[in-house]
């Protein structure tokens, strides 16, 4: 094979991998691309790559690599019940990198109610403040597949979290609401209970209007 021909084949590799490798080699290549964060090449394979990614995630013994797979799911943003099922197994892991990547990725692979419920629970109850904060982050930014009705439920849970006993939970719940809506409705996380309740009622009234308009 001439050098020119070799060079032209190499040029083709990142563009059309499915034309160059067979099925088995493709799995190995996907693994390489995950490790190398080459999401563009993975995306080019289309949704059929998802079972391979799930397999890579579930068969990995290294949490660092699992975190890379989770990050790949995040960046792809494709709904996948299999990916959600795999990621949910690690939604309480104590490995920091993996936990954050899983929490961020979940809303980008699924709009199932238990994803939001789990993230809300992590935001309110996880013993690690960083995990609580990042769960709120995921609720604020990454629930990209929710329907309007599902958003109502998310907002309702965030508004309920404004009643949390922990100041930091009230603060991150308000921030998630503010990122989602652009508003605080005057709620101050550190204000007195009575003041907070008054503003929560304003939020609840807003939510009722939101729901009625759907």
């Amino acid at each position: 094979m001439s050098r020119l021909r070799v060079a032209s084949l190499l040029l083709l590799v990142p563009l059309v991998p499915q034309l160059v490798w067979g099925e088995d080699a493709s799995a190995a290549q996907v693994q390489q691309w995950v490790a190398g964060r080459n999401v563009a090449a993975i995306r080019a394979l289309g949704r059929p790559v998802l079972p391979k990614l799930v397999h890579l995630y579930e068969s990995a013994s290294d949490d660092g690599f699992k975190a890379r797979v989770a990050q790949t799911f995040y960046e792809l943003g494709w709904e996948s019940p299999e990916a959600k099922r795999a990621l949910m197994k690690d939604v309480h892991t104590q490995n920091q990198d993996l936990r954050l990547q899983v929490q961020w990725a979940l809303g980008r692979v699924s709009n199932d109610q238990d994803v939001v419920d789990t993230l809300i629970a992590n935001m309110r109850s996880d013993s690690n403040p960083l995990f609580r904060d990042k769960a709120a982050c995921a609720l604020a930014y990454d629930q990209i597949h929710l329907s309007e009705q599902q958003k109502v439920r998310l907002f309702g849970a965030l508004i309920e979290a404004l009643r949390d006993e922990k100041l930091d939970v009230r603060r991150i719940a308000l921030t998630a609401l503010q990122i989602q809506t652009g508003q605080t409705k005057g709620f101050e996380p550190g204000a007195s209970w009575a003041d907070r309740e008054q503003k929560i009622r304003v939020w609840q009234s807003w939510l009722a209007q939101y729901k009625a308009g759907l």
Partner: protein
Amino acid sequence: MAELARTIQGGFVGSLVVFGFIGGSAWAQAQGAAGALVRYSFDDDLVDTGPDTFSVSQFGRGSVRLSTVYRFSGYRSVEIRDVAGDRNFPELQGYFPIRTEGKLYLHFAMMTTDPGEELNIALAGPQWFRLRKDGIAFWLKTANGYLTAISDSMPKKLFCMRAFVWYVVDATYDIDAGTYDLTIRQEGLESPVADMRGQANAASQPGSRVDKFSFIGDHDTDASNVVYYVDDVLVGVDEAIVHQPFAAPGRRKLFVDYWNSARRARAAHPKPLPMMSLADLGIGSAETAALRQNGAGELLGQILSGRLPEVPDDLPDPSRSILQSVIAWREGARALTDGDAELALARFDRASQLSPSAALSQMDAVMALANLARWDEVDRRLAGIVPQWRDDPRLPATLAIIGLARGDLDAVEHQLRPSAESSGLLAEEYFLTLLWKGDAARAETFAHTMLARGPDSERGLWRERLGDAAFLSGSIERARDYYEASLAEHPRPNSVWLKLSDVYFKLGDLEKERAFRERVYGSLRER
């Protein structure tokens, strides 16, 4: 909690790159109209892209381009075409000086081909397209077939949209109060389909400043295949500006409007014709794809705005030939405008050589020849290219201008009259010359003569021309009768259908107006 701001999302715009490439031309900002901050009718001359005007983002497989297929007024609108799954969205974004107080008036017309596909239209401030103060102020989107307004951070259904129907949106935004009034009219209906007062702005933020607007497909889910059209965008600080005839619901420019405006602007000397679309320069979808593939879209924008005199050496074909042709055409247009018809002819011919399908270069070459009084060559070339210009609104005025350029009008009439009845093109030129000088009665008499004595194959065409004469003299019902009669014998009824659409618009019959318009432009439904 600062950690929560892990990724500040750009809203509609991730990273903005300005392509000076919008189907090739013609964006006009408000000029000379006090109170208007932005005004795009998409029918005027070239204006550079930039931070004070507008930008076009065409990442992914979507596009933003001028369209003559559908327009609310004039000759062109802008088509915004999104493609699902390409990880991006096309965007038309316009800028205006920041407004921090008072009222702002927003007006535009829009038509979607499928209300089920998402589109988003927003007015925003320095915080871009995010729900926050100084972010999105006014936001319309389609959701599940409904046009929806985002107000007080929640979606509010306005009405179920219809495909292929123009809607005219008028919003009055009170910056200090953070509220807006919104009226939306549907073409053909008297009463508004939406009429809301005192609505909270998108994030219920009083004092939220604004300095830009945006038209996109979807911005998050990448699931939209929307194709929609925007026309007559107007942002102003004076309500009177917004409610000028320009903004009147249902107004559309009639085919005679091009004739009239050309008549006002051109005097007797043949000048380059205005460009209406990239297709005029031989740039169709294949050429556009080639330019994109070579990353040359921005170069085309620079050439069209006169900022790039030469094609870079390393640009491969076919993009190289396409752009060289555009440069040659521009040089020819400039030379002809400056009175150097010899140079203009050479440049137009060079452009045609490089891009044989560039119809505008061919017609402009004829205009240069007319300037040089090389009439034999004018007639020979015209005969060859007129058939492909048959449905173009620029043709009648162009023929009349050529007729006038032959010399003193009386001499022109004497020269044409003997041969008029033996040559279709010369007869048409003569007829149009009479109309151009305002002598509709003589033009009509001449057309009747041609109808009686001319070949049977041209009877439909002469009835159409009789309709034109009647229309121009204000006899709309007579024009309708001529046009209707011409259909039975017309070899190419497209132009008559379009004129009948205009006639019925004038007569107030919007159902028939639409029926004839859709006969001409119905192909888009199949996309």
